[in-house]
């Protein structure tokens, strides 16, 4: 009997309203990146030039939702990924960008454009249809789609991300042991 050739799992990653720190933590697996590349293939990700997500096994999302474009990308990830992981504080509860939630958007808008420091005379509010519309509050991912796993931290360490990916690739339920769960 032939041993079945194990196909590489497809992984897509994206940053919504995040700072890319969670992606940097993914790279903080250091040399283990080369082991990972033996097992997975990257689909849409800031690390590749694939702009539209295809059918994937795992979706890795950092950042919450701050505009309509974020919501669109999140829904695309949900419908294309078997397993969707919310990575980091921003994805899980909005994180630091959600600090704007106690301010009314129209007030921020007004302040930024009428009292901002050092603006040229006549500067006005950007109003081009190419720009996504900001949501009035920053939302976490699970409020909008079902999320399968959450990795806390700002960012979670490379070791924590590695553990979750390694467990999933081995077909186990991911378990974050002592020292890998932290919230800062």
């Amino acid at each position, binding site marked *: 009997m032939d041993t079945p050739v194990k196909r590489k799992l497809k992984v897509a990653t994206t*940053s919504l309203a*995040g*700072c*890319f*720190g969670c992606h*940097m*933590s993914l*790279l*903080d697996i*250091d*040399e283990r990146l*080369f082991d990972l590349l033996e097992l997975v*293939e*990257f689909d849409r990700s*800031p*690390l*590749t*030039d*694939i*702009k539209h997500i295809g059918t994937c096994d795992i979706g890795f999302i950092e950042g919450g*939702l*701050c*505009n*309509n474009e974020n*919501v669109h990308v999140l829904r695309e990830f949900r419908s294309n990924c078997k397993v969707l992981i919310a990575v980091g504080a921003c994805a899980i509860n909005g994180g630091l*960008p959600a600090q*704007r939630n*106690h*301010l009314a*958007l*129209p007030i*921020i*808008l007004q*302040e*930024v*454009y009428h009292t*901002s*420091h*050092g*603006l*040229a005379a006549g*500067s006005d*509010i*950007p109003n*081009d249809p*190419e*720009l*996504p*519309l*900001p949501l*009035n*509050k920053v*939302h976490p991912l*699970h*409020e*909008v789609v079902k999320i399968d796993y959450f990795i806390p931290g*700002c*960012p979670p360490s*490379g070791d924590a991300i590695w553990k979750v990916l390694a467990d999933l690739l081995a077909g186990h339920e991911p378990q974050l042991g002592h020292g890998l769960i932290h919230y*800062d």
Partner: protein
Amino acid sequence: MSNSLETASHPENLRRVAIDPVSRVEGHGKVTILLDAQNKVQQVRLHIVEFRGFEKFIQGRPYWEVPVMVQRLCGICPVSHNLASSKAMDLIVGAKHLTPTAEKIRRLMHYGQILQSHALHFFHLCSPDLLFGFDSDIAKRNIVGVAAKYPDTARRGVLLRKFGQEVIRHTAGKRIHGTGSIPGGVNKALTLAERDELLADIYQMVEWSRDAVHLIKEMHSQNPALYNSFGAFRANLMSIVGNNGELDLYHGALRGRDANGAVLFDGVDYQNYSGLIEEEVKPWTYMKFPYLKALGQDLGWYRVGPLSRIQNCDSIATPLAEMERREFVAYSAGSLMHAPLAYHWARMIEMLFAAEMIKDLLHDDAILGHELVATGERALEGVGCIEAPRGTLIHHYRVDENDLVTMCNLIVSTTHNNQAMNEAVRQVARYYLSGHEITEGLLNHIEVAIRAFDPCLSCATHALGKMPLQVELLDSEGSTLSTLTRSSEGDLS
């Protein structure tokens, strides 16, 4: 220095092509191109599409929180924001001079950051274009492809980045979003064991950094026609330089040059940056456009980052990087190098400089010291400035008597380069795309030009937009979480 191709005269009947999102850069951006029936390019814009509003919600927070908050602007160069805001807060707490230990630990942290960010940018993000070709197979044009074809290069990139991250971890407490730098100093020095751990690897890092300079230099000499002209445009430049005109990425005064290399201003204390720089807002991007007030909006824009710094300074204090700087300057025989791809060369010289600086600092016993924090007379306003991996970074705060921030203004590196990046993509569109059938490979040429600047697009989002649109956010069960309507006047309800 023209603005042509910024706005088409008759956009109505043009075909739109978008690069969305721009990939292998940090942050959220897209490019739109408008073409006529003959595929002639009529308009090209690099849009920054995200708003986060840091400058606003920082207000009302206690000043000591700010250095750890603002670094969440950017996960690639959090140390830069941490340090720029710490430097501003040093003035708030009256620490005009840091203790030697604090200053050296901060410098060590910063050069660790320069090393890791430059390594990431060159090896993980840009080397695929340079090694495989701008229109090579999209499936291989990434770090995975590099790891398969040039495993040694990829491995060095990963290990250089790792080393920089370890320097940050030992100085800041954590690789990303650490807490080491605080108003008035630092909260930790190095232990002997930590220092020895870093010392064990630093010589290898210096050597690999030097090899990286040689690699990019080799690429220039093999294809000078491409490297010297791709996306090239003439521009002013700006950076901070040290007291003696030397390259210093942690502290100094502002110096600017015109496109011929003549000094426009020098020795400007960055506390007075607002006398020098003003910002313009354009309707089609959330990123502002800074310019030198004295020259005005049309002529006053400038370029920052490695290409500016290497040509703006008079010397580099470390021997290997200084040798490379001289070669770089000699290459363009007395005139300024304006080609975007030369950013990579300049960037690798800076990576070598960072590695040499780390080596020197690791040999300095001050980094093992115990005097960590200085204080003095409280002030109510401070500006911090630093050369981040991508260029000059300015943080400006006012703090009231209750220790709460009342004003925050940030001009981040990528914002300084806004006009310059737009000029570069327009040049590329003009020479490579216009009149041709647009292919994926051609579109990647546009991204190659953007990547040369190493933009940090997520740092650069302070503003808010308006357009007639309604957004309804539904939860996973389909019920409405919130709705937001914006009229064409920009009113939100």
